[in-house]
Structures are given as structure tokens and as C-alpha cells.
């Protein structure tokens, strides 16, 4: 059991509304900076696996829309908000630790 903080970006590296590709243990994910908070999530939409790097659009608040089919996900919980009840987006906790943005992985 343990906790790992995986650094994925420097503080200030992302401008508001920007997204960055990150590699976590060989899995592709994205880091987004929205409303002063960082969010990390799987790069692929759970609906039909569209690449959210190109198809994802950050909306107001903490929602990302996959423009392939307009599925929307809450970046805090991963829950699919439109249409409700569809498979969730895999999300990971991101936090600022000093000068770095880290993904907190606990096991």
C-alpha cells in the first residue's frame, strides 16, 4: 500500500482552458486547467473511444464535451452528465505540490 505523486506539469505551465497530454505508466491521459483547478482524466472518451485531445472541449465549470457525439462528463467525478447514466470517464486526482502539478495515486 502506498501513495505516489506523479509530477506531470509545472505550475503555471497551462493557461486557463488548456489541456496537456500526459503519460502515466504507459497509459495516455490529459491534464486540463479549468477555473483555477487541475483535472486529469483518460485521453479516450468512454463512449466510442474518441481522442479527447482533439475531440474534447472544455465547457464552463468542470465539464468536458466530446465533440464526436457530444457526450459530456463531469471532470470531478467522471460521471457522464449527457446522456445521463452512460459509462463514466476515468478521472484521476490532480493537485499542486509546490512548483509541480502531480497526480495522486493511492493504493
Amino acid at each position, binding site marked *: 500500500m502506498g501513495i*505516489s505523486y*506523479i509530477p506531470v506539469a509545472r505550475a503555471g505551465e497551462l493557461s486557463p482552458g488548456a489541456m496537456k497530454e500526459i503519460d502515466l505508466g*504507459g*497509459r495516455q491521459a490529459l491534464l486540463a486547467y479549468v477555473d483555477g483547478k487541475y483535472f486529469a482524466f483518460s485521453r479516450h472518451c468512454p463512449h*466510442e473511444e*474518441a481522442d479527447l485531445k482533439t475531440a474534447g472541449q472544455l465547457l464552463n465549470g468542470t465539464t468536458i464535451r466530446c465533440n464526436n457525439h*457530444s457526450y459530456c462528463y463531469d471532470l470531478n467525478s467522471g460521471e457522464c452528465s449527457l446522456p445521463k447514466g452512460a459509462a463514466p470517464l476515468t478521472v*484521476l486526482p490532480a493537485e499542486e505540490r509546490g512548483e509541480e502539478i502531480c497526480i495522486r495515486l493511492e*493504493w
Partner: protein
Amino acid sequence: MSYDLIIRGGRVVDGSGLPSYVADVGVRNGKIAEVGRLTESAARTIDAAGLAVSPGFIDHHTHLDAQMLWDPYGTCEPQHGITTVVMGNCGLTLAPIKKGDEDAVVKSFVRVEAIPRHALEQGVTWNWHSYGEYLDNFEGKVGINVGGLVGHIAVRHNVIGEEAVERKATSAEVQKMRAIILESMQGGALGMSTNRNERHMREDGKPVASRLADDEELFALCDVLAERNAGVIETILGRNKIEHFEFYHELAKRTQRPVLWQSLQHRWVEPNLWREQLNAVEPIFKAGYQAYGLSHTVPLVRHFTLQDCQVFDEFPTWKNLMFLPVEVRKQALADPDTRQKLRADFADPRPTNFHRRWDIPRVEKVVKGENQKYVGKTLAELAALRNQDPLDAFLDLALEEDLGTVFWNANNGGDRDAMGEILRSPYVLVGTSDAGAHVQFGADFGYGTILLGLWVRERQVMSLEQAIHKLTFHVASIFGLEGRGLLRPGYAADLTIFDPKTVGAHEPEWANDYPAASKRLIQKSSGLHYTIVNGRVIHEDGRMTGDLPGQVIRGPLYREQKAAA
């Protein structure tokens, strides 16, 4: 008298479900002329010794409405023995349409059926208004036979315009819709389809138009089919619920038309739902009405390693481990305390897609020669062989192979006994290929070749004769496709010649054959040697001949109308 084509010495599986027999099949003028020992000559002879000869398969659940406009074969339908397709399912059709409504329909197709917008914008010409005019587009231009259902979504937009996605219809509007349904049936529609799936939205997040229809509207539209005693009613209500069967019963009883509902399949997380559904539908049939459940033959399979695995993302500890650096992950996977947390994740009773069973995932490929003995074993069997707890056996094997072991899992459609009962049920219509939809996500053109390869040959859940019946005459009977679906004299010479010992479907692969350079997935087959439509060979061992003998299959009201004229 000579024939255009003789297929010699094949095992005739005639679509009726009766035992097969060896015979020659003579074809003349697009129809089966004779079956038996034929001594006459023919312009072409196909030697079918050792092969099966059956009616061409009928794919009743497609969304090829757009694709057939640019691809006369509905690729890859013929490669899997399909000679007839039914379009217009789930409430979605490209007709009837009036100027200005095109984008409303496109918005629904793009979102619900996941067809790239650019492909639709470039590939759909919109040179029609009525459903009959839409079907006219295919006359003389298609390689396979096409028919279609008229979709409630397009009908609603036609009458209510953009407000179709916002409100109920007035009585006057319902009357106009009824007239359009009748006109569409007289133009050749094989029935109508509707969509109440709570997840089905347009691109702009608004519900598809048919979701705004109340029972009164829907029943009034279906009454058109009842009054004319013609056509099927295809429905999609969303999440499978037993309460839906009251609706199906009411609709089937009121209209006395075949009602089709979606869907019935075996899922490990709801392992008894399929049986409850079959039990719920039985009284409808016993009362003398028809409400067929659509089922699929293709298990939803995932192949994975613990190097890059999404299968367990629903479980917090598993998920976090799978994002850790590989060396840290390996240490964690070996740690007994972490394994306890992984076990606790699986013990959490909340519903998940992953079934949490050890008797389903299998070892598919190993790295080390000494582990070859585990290939094909379930994780429960692996555990027994290694005298370990299943989770320990699973993780230890993966760790011994530096996480390179490939595992196989199916959350849906993997259980032999359940699938056998589902596929054999007379209340189940086999095949939900969704051909023409979700084109960048999956390709299930091979539902028929998978039925024959996986479920008949490998798992032996039904006879070849039963399976062919399900793929042919069962569908033709329900949809009222006169003169098709049986290999008998007088029937259309829509034929498939395949090798029962090798027939099967390949894994989907990428192609660039959609308009606007859109990528999509296609699927090839093996053991499927010839596909013949109206007596002419269109597919021969993976090669398309270029011939376009397909016909537009129009429903009984069109035929009545034409006879009267």
C-alpha cells in the same frame, strides 16, 4: 432447358430449419428454378462439393441508410453472406424529408448512430422528399437487396419542424404524421421504427424527436400499420426493464403486427435478465401476438495485459495501480496488503460493468514457453492448476511474464448455455449488426458468420439448419419479404455458399473508404466463398465482382398500390 447458373453438389441448407441434403441448385432469371439432381447445362457452374449452400442472409437491423447511397454493396455485408439489408431502424431514416429539415436528421444520425458528420455531409445528396422517392435512389444501383422502415424521427420533423424535439404533437399533427406513415408504406416501407431511448440525443444535446411522442401519438401512428395489416414495428426503449413488456404486449395486441424490441443478451453483471425477458415475452406470444427480442451473436470481447489495462478502471485501487509507473506497479501487484485492497475493491457490491468472476477471463497468450499450458484456461482454472487463489494466480502469472501475458475477457455474450437458449428461442430475432453505424467503434457485419463459426461449429449450441433458419426465413417471415429467405424453386436466387468447417469473421480493421476521407472499421470473413444476389455472383472469395443485381424490396402496401394502378 439450360440454366444461367448451377451450383453442384453442395449441402443444401434451405432456410426452413429442416435437415440439409446434398443437391444441385439450378438458377434461371434470378430465381431458383430447380433443386435436385440436375443434368442440364448452365452458363456457369460452381462446384460446391463439401460446402453448404443456403439462402442469402437477411440483415434486418442496419443503419446503412446513408452508406448505401455511396457504397452499393453496404461493404462488408456481402463478405458475410448477406444478400438483403433492412435500413431505417431505431426511428432514424433519411426520408421523408422536407427542405430545411436535413440538418435535424443529420444531427440525430451523427449522435445516435455515430456516423461522421463529414461523411454524411458529403455522401448524402437529399434528392428526395418522400420515403418512396428515397427508395427510388437505389433502383438499379445496388449490389444487394435493400428495404427499409420509415423512421418516426424524420416523420416528426416533417410535420412539426424543429419543435419536434421540444414538444408533444397536436391532434392535427398526429393526423398528418399518420398520412405520412401511410404514404411511406405505400412508397415501399416495410414498417416503421421509433426510438424512446433516454440516452439518444442529437448532437446539440436535445432528445431525438421521437422521444417527445407520448403513447397516444405512437399508438396512433402504429395503428396505420394495424389498419392496413402490413409492416413491422421496430422499437428501442432504452435500458432493458421488465416493465417494458406491458408496453410491448399492448402494442402487439392493439396492432396485431410484429413488434421488435431491443434487446436481449447475456450480461454477466445481470446474468438472469435475459431469462426474465424471455419469461416476460412468452405470454405475449401465447396470447397470439408477436413481440420479438433482438439479440446479438458477437461477444463483447476485450484483450488486455496489465501493462496497459482499462478493464478495471471502475475499481479505485485497480485503477490507480494501472496508472502507476510500471516498476512501481509491479511492486504493488506483488504486495500482499495491496492484494487485499484489490480483493476489497471487487467485494464492493455496487453495480459495475466488470463481472468480477474468475471463471470468465482467460489466458490468451503467454510470454514464456513453460506457461504455454495455461493458454485457453480461465483464471479459475489457472488458479486450480497452480493451487493458488485466483487473484494471486492471475497477478503472479502476469508478474512472472513482466506483465506481458495477454488475457481475454467478455462482459457480454460469453456464456455458452445462456447464449444457446437465447439464440434458439423462437421469440428471438438474431442479428443486431448496426451495419453503417458506430463506424469508428465497431464492425459487426459478421454476426452471421460468427453465429455459424462460434456458436454452431465451436460451441455447438444449435444445428446448422437452425442457425441458417434464423439468418434467413425467420427474418423474411417476420418482415414479410415475399419470395425470399428459402432455397426452394420459385424463390429469389439470393444464395450464400460457405464452408461450415472454416466459416467465421475476422477482427475488425481500419479502412478509408468513407466520404470525406473518414476512417471506419470494416470486417472480413473466412470460409464464405460466394454471395449471389438475384442469381448473379457479387462476391467470390473476398473479391467483389462489380455486378449490381440488387433490388429494392418494397412492402405489401406498395405492391397493393401498384396492382391497383
